[in-house]
């Protein structure tokens, strides 16, 4: 596995360039919004971060499924990378949301369903990363994090709807849903910027995980997780 890191590095560089361009546009050229004034400009990083945080964690979910179905180590490495990236983006999202809330609603946290769900996701997926740190056996670590990731991901819509109903009893206000067309360009540029950035970083981070795994298991690295000892695997609960 002598993969060249050029691909990911190009992605990261491209992502950064797009982000700089999009942010510059959003900060200088785009008009201020009617009711929110200058604070609206936070949306040019906040909305793209939201899209990409969700994308990264969705990719983590796919990796978890792929690992459980194929038992190939590469999916475990990608899972670790995607979850870490997802947690970072989600944490960033919460901070951005908080900074946006203060001048708008006067409080640092307004229990907006989407942001609150994101906060729960930070804890949920952060917890899975913590779980990985405490499991020494690589095979077990891989299976357990995949299982935990699936359960956590399935839970996300439930958390969202329950917080939405819970909050609707207290709050009439809501965060703006639509962004008018004058603002689309910086939004899209930044969205792709963060997309390329996180894709490149996840690719690199997966390689870090693979290299560490290779070190842990000692050569030669099997392509798949070793099968269950014994003639027939008891896993799966065949009854």
């Amino acid at each position: 596995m002598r993969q060249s890191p050029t691909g990911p590095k190009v992605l990261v560089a491209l992502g950064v360039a797009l982000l700089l361009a999009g942010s510059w546009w959003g900060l200088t050229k785009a008009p201020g919004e009617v009711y929110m004034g200058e604070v609206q400009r936070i949306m040019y990083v906040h909305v793209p971060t939201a899209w990409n945080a969700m994308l990264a964690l969705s990719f983590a979910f796919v990796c978890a499924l792929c690992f459980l179905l194929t038992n190939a180590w590469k999916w475990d490495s990608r899972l670790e990378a995607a979850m870490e990236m997802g947690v970072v983006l989600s944490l960033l999202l919460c901070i951005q949301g908080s900074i946006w809330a203060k001048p708008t609603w006067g409080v640092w946290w307004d229990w907006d369903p989407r942001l609150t769900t994101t906060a729960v996701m930070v804890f949920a997926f952060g917890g899975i990363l913590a779980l990985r740190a405490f499991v020494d056996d690589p095979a077990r670590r891989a299976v357990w994090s995949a299982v935990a990731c699936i359960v956590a991901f399935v839970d996300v819509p439930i958390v969202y709807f329950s917080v939405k109903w819970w909050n609707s009893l207290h709050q009439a206000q809501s965060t703006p849903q639509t962004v008018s067309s004058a603002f689309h360009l910086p939004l899209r540029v930044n969205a792709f910027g963060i997309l390329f950035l996180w894709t490149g970083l996840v690719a690199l981070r997966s390689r870090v995980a693979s290299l560490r795994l290779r070190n842990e298991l000692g050569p030669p690295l099997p392509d798949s997780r070793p099968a269950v000892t014994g003639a027939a695997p008891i896993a799966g609960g065949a009854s």
Partner: protein
Amino acid sequence: MSGVVQGGWEFVAGAYIVTATILSAYATSVFLRYRTEQRRAAAEAEREARK
């Protein structure tokens, strides 16, 4: 009260700065970890080759 949020540039600046800081810090940590692992793998390969 005109109904428009006044000023707020410090919040905008804060948001962009936090975004830039967190993303660059994380990217740096990934690159550093990658370099460490590459070096370790190279050293191992060399040791194997010498044996």
